[in-house]
């Protein structure tokens, strides 16, 4: 990982309280470099989704600073966001759902069409372009939602427990697909999950969060080389990483009692 490059995400002392007084995040510090794969784990309700929404710019921090800068131009990076639920428009076909971001950005139809086809190809759903969301399985809907996030060719991919609702087999396959795409496209990824194993399998770095108030309590490098495959799952290094993250999480859990 090229950690020397300017960070893509820079969060300084960020806090966020909701209107009802809930302090969801307090003094969060985090910087994520170009092409990193950051796993974000923590107990339910610790503010993972909130942090992701801050990074995406969907909310402003109540204190502190959150900035995202892409390397070349200094502009805000193109963001792809995958929600915890598929979040598809039920009235639109798969093609139109994936087409949506390009349509909103006003891309010419001809170019958009080929990009949508490409994105559908990537997630293996090219044959379902004319289907409605209700005709798809849960995993397929999730893949449509991933295709929609990829179609704008983002430099920053934010994923909120995208595979949480899937069975292990499907999840493992999608994990591998995601890693392959990541290594080809060199995105920066922030990946929220509540599965330690998933985080360690995917990430180059894992940030561990604690709850009430939400904060980052550990920042762990997962230095096993890519490409990773099922062999990695069985390796001693994988087991060791899992143990480290587990104990960090356990400490996070007890520290606020």
């Amino acid at each position, binding site marked *: 990982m090229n950690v020397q490059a300017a960070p893509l995400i820079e969060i300084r002392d960020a806090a966020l309280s909701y209107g009802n007084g809930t302090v969801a995040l307090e003094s969060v510090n985090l910087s994520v470099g170009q092409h990193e794969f950051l796993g974000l784990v923590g107990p339910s309700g610790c503010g993972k989704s909130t942090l992701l929404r801050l990074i995406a710019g969907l909310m402003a921090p109540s204190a502190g600073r959150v900035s995202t800068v892409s390397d070349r131009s200094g502009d805000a990076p193109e963001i792809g966001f995958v929600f915890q639920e598929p979040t598809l428009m039920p009235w639109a076909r798969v093609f139109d759902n994936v087409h*949506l971001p390009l349509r909103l950005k006003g891309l010419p139809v001809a170019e958009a069409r080929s990009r949508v086809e490409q994105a559908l190809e990537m997630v293996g759903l090219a044959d379902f372009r004319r289907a409605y969301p209700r005709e798809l399985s849960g995993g397929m809907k999730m893949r449509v939602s991933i295709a929609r996030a990829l179609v704008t060719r983002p430099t920053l991919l934010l994923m909120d427990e995208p595979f949480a609702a899937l069975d292990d087999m499907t999840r493992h396959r999608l994990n591998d697909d995601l890693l392959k795409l990541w290594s080809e496209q060199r995105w920066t990824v922030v990946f929220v999950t509540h599965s330690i194993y998933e985080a360690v399998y995917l990430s180059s770095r894992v940030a561990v969060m604690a709850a009430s108030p939400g904060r980052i309590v550990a920042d762990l490098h997962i230095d096993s080389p890519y490409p990773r495959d099922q062999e990695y799952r069985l390796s001693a290094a994988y087991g060791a990483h899992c143990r480290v993250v587990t104990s960090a999480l356990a400490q996070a859990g007890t520290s606020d009692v």
Partner: protein
Amino acid sequence: MSDATATTRSRHRLAADLAVPLLIALLALGAWEAIVRWRDVPAYILPAPSLIARTLVTDWGTLWPAWLITLKVTALALLASIVGGVGLAFLFTLSRWIERSLFPFAIILQVTPIIAIAPLILIYAPNTLSALLLCAWIVAFFPVLSNTVTGLRSADRNLQDLFTLYGATRWQRLRLLLAPSALPYFLAGLRIAGGLSLIGAVIAEFTAGTAGQESGLAWRILEASFRLNVARMFAALTLISVTGIAIFVALNILTRKLLGHWHESQLPEHR
């Protein structure tokens, strides 16, 4: 289950949906006819269905123009409900401030019995037709308005965020997200408004009474009742019912057409 059997099955269901009520209606009409003949009930108390049918034919010359007027008022009121209800709903979603200042008046219009307002409207409206229209509109527009407002508000939050993320314009958000999300709600409101616009038209005609040559079916009923022409009352009533049923069926077909491919309410029970 293959597509073919699915179609056959839904066709069977449709046939059953139609056949059973039809059968019951026929039985009831038959019993009615039988009782009237048996007991020799005079026509000015209870006319037999056959007499009502004959009256429909013989009085067609008076009933048909009256029916046209009622149809016209109903259709225009429904149209105005759609335009007014949806237009106001869009305004309300554009600004909470507009909603706060106007919504109470919509509610006042809705809760005040139209029978009580109608005489006033008759005084101030420039002509009978516009008075009838206004009455029917007041009765019918509220469900469209309130349902559309709810619908426009109920767009998925995450989808809203998605539109924000990709820098959607207001117009794009309205057209691509809010309007489709509101459509099922709007149609549910429309189906209520369809029935109400007919009811509104009839009530308005009753209240307007003799006021003019432009009299609809409701006035024909009143007029026939003064003359104890009960058969004609029933004939006019039949036409009103037919109109109501036609509106109901048409709006259901429209709903099916617009929502059939995606909305839960329109999907078969076993998918």
